[in-house]
C-alpha cells in the first residue's frame, strides 16, 4: 500500500481508512470470533433472501432447518467418523459435535415457501416473503 499525502486531496479522503480496515479484517480473519457455527452468507433478492452456509462432511439428514417469522435456525451434528475409536489422532483441526445457529432475517418470511439445497457440503436456503407482506406500489394521481 502506498501512502501518499496527496492522495486524499483528489479522491475520497476516507478511502485510505477503509482500505486499512479491510486489510485488518483480512489479516485477522483466521482469529475472528465466530458468531457461531455454521458461518453464513446472506444474499438479498427482489422478494426473497438466500442464506448459504458451509457444512462439509455433514450428512443432509443430520441438518435441521426451521423458520419462524424473521428467524432462521440451523442446527445439527457433526459426527465423528465411524472408525474414530480404532485410530490414533495425529492432528485434529476440524470440530465435531452438535451445533446450533440462529440467523435474524431482514423481514418475516413464509415458512411454507422455504427451499433448501445441499450439495458438496454447501447448504443453500431460499426464503420468500409472504404475499401480503410485500410492499405495495402506490400510484400517484395527478391532482
Amino acid at each position, binding site marked *: 500500500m502506498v501512502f501518499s499525502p496527496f492522495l486524499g486531496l483528489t479522491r475520497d479522503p476516507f478511502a485510505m481508512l477503509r482500505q486499512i480496515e479491510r486489510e485488518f479484517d483480512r489479516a485477522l480473519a483466521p482469529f475472528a470470533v465466530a458468531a457461531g457455527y455454521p458461518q453464513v452468507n446472506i*444474499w438479498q433478492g427482489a422478494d426473497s433472501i438466500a442464506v448459504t452456509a458451509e457444512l462439509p*462432511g455433514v450428512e443432509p439428514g443430520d441438518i435441521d432447518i426451521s423458520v419462524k417469522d424473521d428467524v432462521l435456525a440451523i442446527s445439527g451434528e457433526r459426527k465423528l467418523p465411524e472408525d474414530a475409536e480404532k485410530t490414533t489422532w495425529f492432528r485434529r483441526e476440524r470440530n465435531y459435535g452438535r451445533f446450533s445457529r440462529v440467523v435474524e432475517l431482514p423481514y418475516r418470511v413464509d415458512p411454507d415457501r422455504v427451499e433448501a439445497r445441499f450439495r458438496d457440503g454447501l447448504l443453500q436456503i431460499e426464503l420468500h416473503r409472504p404475499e401480503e407482506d410485500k410492499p405495495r406500489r402506490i400510484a400517484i394521481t395527478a391532482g
Partner: protein
Amino acid sequence: MTTEVTKTAATTPARSQEAQESTRGVRVFRPLVDIRESDSEVILAVEMPGVGPDDVEIELDRRVLTIRGRGRLTSPEGFRLIYAEYGEGDYERSFTLSDEIDRAAIRAAMRNGLLTLTLPRAGAAKPKRIEVKAA
C-alpha cells in the same frame, strides 16, 4: 466532508498471506485437515466445502502430496450479497509423506465437501535380503 463516495477498483497486490495466486482470481484457502492413523493406514480428512469429486486434484511428487480443490462460487441470479462471514474460493494444502506409505494404493473419496484420503502403509518394511555369493 464529501457525501459522494468515489469507488476505485480494488487492486490486489500479491499478498504474502495467500500462498498461491490463482489463475481464476479467487482466494486460495488452506483447508482444515484431520490426520488419523490405524495399524495399517493413515487417514486424512480434508474439508473443502463447495468442491465436488470432479474438482479435486491430488498430486504426488516424490514424497510431497498436494491436494487442490476448485470451489464452486455462489452467485445466485438476481441476488446481492449483503452479509458475509466466510469467503469462497479454491483450496490447497501439501503434506510430506513418510517412505512407509504404499503410494500405489492411495485411495480418495469425496463426499459432501469432505475428502477422505486413505494412505496404506507398505507391508512392514520387509528387510531386503542380500545374497552373499562366495567369491
